């Protein structure tokens, strides 16, 4: 197997190239810029498109144009830039176009800082822009997954004609790991029935999100809603570690799941029965799996790089069946294994809530 040692951010472009992405539009921002650097290097080499756009607003609208042609395309940014993409994302979802958008999350709100956070969870999982829409949100925790989930994002975007996004923290973007170089696969979707390519075959097609009549717009929204329900049913992905007999279930994603993972065996050695559930899709959220655990465990602990965002989805899944605890750091501070272990001890001794 051909391998390379690379940054998570570079692995995103590796996955994009393997998935047949042909156009990249982006605007620089730390800690996501390596994605644009890699795109600038590789896309033109394959006679693909790379444009450094004048803003994230322009970039996402270039994506709208290329996606509307039924051609695989993407953009990437970090938090402040992802905020600017919301208008475009709403239009892309409304017009039902497939596109991939990456957010290497940094500290907020406002300019915040360039350090890792997960405080864009709400924005990534609840729509983000205006209107009734959702975007698939995948949360890799390794360089390999940055590549693999980017490929998956392109497939899901095409399958559902909907934006699919990657939410990674600054650490997952900046760290280097060994990545297996993927085999490019043919794009299995023919979008001739709806896309506009500037040719005779698609001349009568229209890319649009406007439905002037309320009756029509309601129907359109219901159709979108049914699609989102199907995604919720079919596309949930998560990973578990030592959850079988767990008394305390830890829910964590992205880099936090790695830190938590490194604490589980140690906690077990101390006699603390903890297990990890890592959402790989944060939308759709693994609510059903968490609900099942909530019937058996004594408690659930959500650990995040935020003041508490994912925990709301955990609570919705648990519906009060067991206590839900929270531990978070933010502003770019990353919890160490030691302080997380301390949480387990306190909770399992019946202390904190």
């Amino acid at each position, binding site marked *: 197997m051909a391998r390379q*040692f690379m940054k998570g951010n570079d692995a995103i472009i590796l996955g994009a190239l393997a998935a047949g992405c042909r156009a990249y539009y982006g605007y620089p921002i730390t800690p996501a810029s390596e994605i644009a650097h890699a795109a600038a290097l590789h896309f033109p080499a394959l006679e693909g498109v790379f444009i450094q756009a004048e803003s994230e607003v322009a970039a996402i*609208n270039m994506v709208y144009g290329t996606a509307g042609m039924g051609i695989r395309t993407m953009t990437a940014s970090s938090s402040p830039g992802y905020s600017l993409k919301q208008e475009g994302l709403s239009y892309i979802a409304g017009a039902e176009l497939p596109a991939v958008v990456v957010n290497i999350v940094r500290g907020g709100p406002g300019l915040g800082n360039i350090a890792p956070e997960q405080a864009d969870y709400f924005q990534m999982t609840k729509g983000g822009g205006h209107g009734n829409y959702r975007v698939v949100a995948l949360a890799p925790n390794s360089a390999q997954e940055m590549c693999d989930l980017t490929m998956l994002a392109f497939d899901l975007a095409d399958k559902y004609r909907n934006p699919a996004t990657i939410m990674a923290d600054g650490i997952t973007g900046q760290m280097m790991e060994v990545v297996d170089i993927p085999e490019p696969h043919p794009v299995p979707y023919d979008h001739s029935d709806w896309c506009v390519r500037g040719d005779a075959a698609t001349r009568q097609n229209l890319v*649009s999100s406007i439905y002037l009549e309320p009756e029509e717009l309601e129907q359109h929204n219901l159709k979108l809603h049914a699609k989102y329900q199907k995604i919720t049913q079919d596309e949930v992905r998560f990973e578990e570690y030592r959850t079988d007999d767990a008394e305390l279930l830890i829910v964590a994603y992205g880099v936090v799941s790695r830190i938590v993972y490194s604490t589980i065996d140690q906690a077990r050695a101390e006699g603390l029965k903890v297990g990890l559930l890592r959402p790989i899709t944060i939308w759709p959220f693994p609510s059903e799996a968490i609900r099942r655990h909530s019937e058996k465990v004594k408690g659930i602990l959500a650990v995040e790089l935020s003041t508490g965002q994912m925990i709301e989805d955990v609570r919705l899944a648990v519906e009060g069946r067991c206590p839900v605890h929270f531990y978070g750091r933010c502003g*770019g501070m990353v919890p160490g294994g030691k302080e997380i272990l301390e949480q387990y001890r306190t909770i399992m001794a019946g202390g904190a809530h």
Partner: protein
Amino acid sequence: MSKVFEQPHSLYSEFERKTAGSKKTTHYCPGCGHGNVHKMIAEALDDLEIAERSVFVSPVGCSVFGYYYFNSGNFQSAHGRAAAVATGVKRANPDSVVISYQGDGDLAAIGTAETIHAANRGENITVIFINNAIYGMTGGQMAPTTMIGQRSTTTPRGRSEVDHGNPVRVCEMLATLPAPTYIERVGLGNSKQIMKARKAIRKALKIQKEGRGYSFVEILAPCPTGWKMDPPQARDHLLDTMEEIFPLGVYKDISDEREEHSWDRLSSPFEVEKRHEYLQAMKTPLDLEPIELPTDLNCKFAGFGGQGILTLGLFLAQVGMKAGHQVSWFPAYGPEMRGGTANCSVNVSRERIGAPTVEHPNVLVAMNQPSLEMFEKDIVDGGWIFVDSGICTGEPDRERLKVTMIPAAEIADKVGTPKVANVVMLGALCAATEMFPADYVKDTLKVIVKRQELVDMNLKAFDAGWEFVRKDG
């Protein structure tokens, strides 16, 4: 309602997509400029025989329903973003003929950035700019092109220079850019002007068809509704007032100097085989040569920026990769960068790596004093510490740690350059930990050191570090 078009083929004869009102008439007000311009564009598409490949982009504004009328591929876009959308269309299929059809609010207020930058990149598209000096769709508010003194629903006392700024002259601005091929302002005030407008639109589209680059036609158009005038009054107003502020004419035309297809861009389809080869060429040149590790390495490398700390980490990680282990490398950035230190965390592990950040290293390389002070206490009992003794003062705890004090910078200087102090440290690390044989690491360095002329220097530095440890026992 305005009268039925005498139909060019590029316009639909019946407007099936229209949801309200007659399907034979447009949704525009009587005397509106949009309908006329639609017809001119359609005639040009017919004439140039490009209708089949044309894509019409209609952003928000009264012409958002362009797709009711144009028998072409159609995109409706967000307010102001038409030029960006058109860019995404054209770049993805350079054979398409793309028309970005925009009002003044769209093009010169909310979409100013997109307008200027599409022009500046010389996108091979045609921008049709309807300047009616007002926001038609939203109820007659001030536009960037509204004239001084002109009343609108948001300038009820008339536009004033001090309160609202002056009307923006887009042709004049864009003409300062080198990339655009053709920029002209025309009007719809009388039949002579209309003939000129028709010619300008045709020319603009022909330029695009021939791949000669960016073309831009501004059209002064009446909006009787927004101006609160009847159609004849509006026409007079256009002739009497607008033209003075927005002089008609060609602002730039270098179409003769531009070769045919000189502004075409490539866009190749996805070919699996080609991608496969391209991606395979990215693979590491290091072949797998497994070496068993007695223990995982969880390393912290720290020092000043410029000491090659990050590279030291990269080298060790790649040695670990070659040996068949899980490896991770993470450079501190953000708040950890305080105090003039650079550091990175490297894990070389026999099993799946948890945290890529290293909280409790079993190897610390400290190349400056702050690093030593910051990280020594974090090292696990029995861990290794390597300190540049020429730079740092103070002794680590020899009871608790396996200590190597090595004047790495001085040794590197003797080898040839202080820049290889990091590789001196790598030599010392490998010798002291006994994880990787010297030749194994040196063979790796021969492959991964990027500048071939520096390989020898690196090998010497490695040997010097290695021997320092072995000699001192």
